[in-house]
């Protein structure tokens, strides 16, 4: 008698779970996100000091700032140099006023840039000087990030043509 009851219960359970389609399970999870399994934490380890992990025989990583690598100089309350890409180099200037940066490029490759999504942010000023309006300024006031950003926009514009 007991085994018969167990069999009936088992059949009932199978029918119940068979009717529960995957879609309804997804909907249930969507409605209650707390039921969704949490993403397992991936393994990440920052080694304490890079210089301790290499011997004298190994070339150490170059830690020169980008603006020095590119030959930028500080002059007249601004930085002057060239945005350098594999497609060419363009003269540039970056000025800082408070937390905001004013970014300029001289005689930019307009033919390529006009197809870039950031082209509306390029505003021509006097002569060959163009200003690039920044919507997001670097949070740490690092002009190296701006140089890298402008170079990436130039590179992207050439790749899209």
């Amino acid at each position, binding site marked *: 008698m007991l085994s018969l009851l167990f069999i009936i219960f088992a059949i009932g359970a199978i029918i119940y779970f068979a009717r529960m389609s995957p879609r309804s399970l997804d909907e249930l999870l969507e409605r209650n996100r707390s039921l969704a399994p949490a993403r397992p934490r991936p393994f990440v380890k920052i080694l304490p000091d890079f210089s301790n992990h290499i011997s004298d025989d190994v070339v150490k990583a170059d*830690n020169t700032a980008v603006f020095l690598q590119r030959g930028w100089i500080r002059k007249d309350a601004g930085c002057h140099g060239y945005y350098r890409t594999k497609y060419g180099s363009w003269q540039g200037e970056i000025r800082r006023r408070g937390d905001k940066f004013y970014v300029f490029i001289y005689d930019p490759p307009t033919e390529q840039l006009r197809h870039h999504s950031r082209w509306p942010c390029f505003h021509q000023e006097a002569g060959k000087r163009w200003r690039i309006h920044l919507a997001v300024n670097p949070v740490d006031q690092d002009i190296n990030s701006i140089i890298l950003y402008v170079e990436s926009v130039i590179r992207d514009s050439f790749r899209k043509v």
Partner: protein
Amino acid sequence: MNDNQTYIQPEILEQGVKRVLIKFPGGMRQPQQALIGPGTTTQDLLNHLGLSRDYALSAGTGETTFGFSEILYPMLSDGDLLYASSRVDAGR
């Protein structure tokens, strides 16, 4: 054991941990080496570096900037170089 060596559990090594070198273009911070396992996102790595989402990671050049929630692990090879720079964007 040598103090300079970091002990990593064998089962984690078996999962295929990759070494990456993270450089900071400003030069104000020393390059750091990190070990990342499968499923590691940009957010995970930035958190471990003590950086907020105001920063971005790119591979070598600015044209390969990774998204904040993008999984880095399959995009990188062991020994790759990453740049951590503050986020900049142009706008009207």
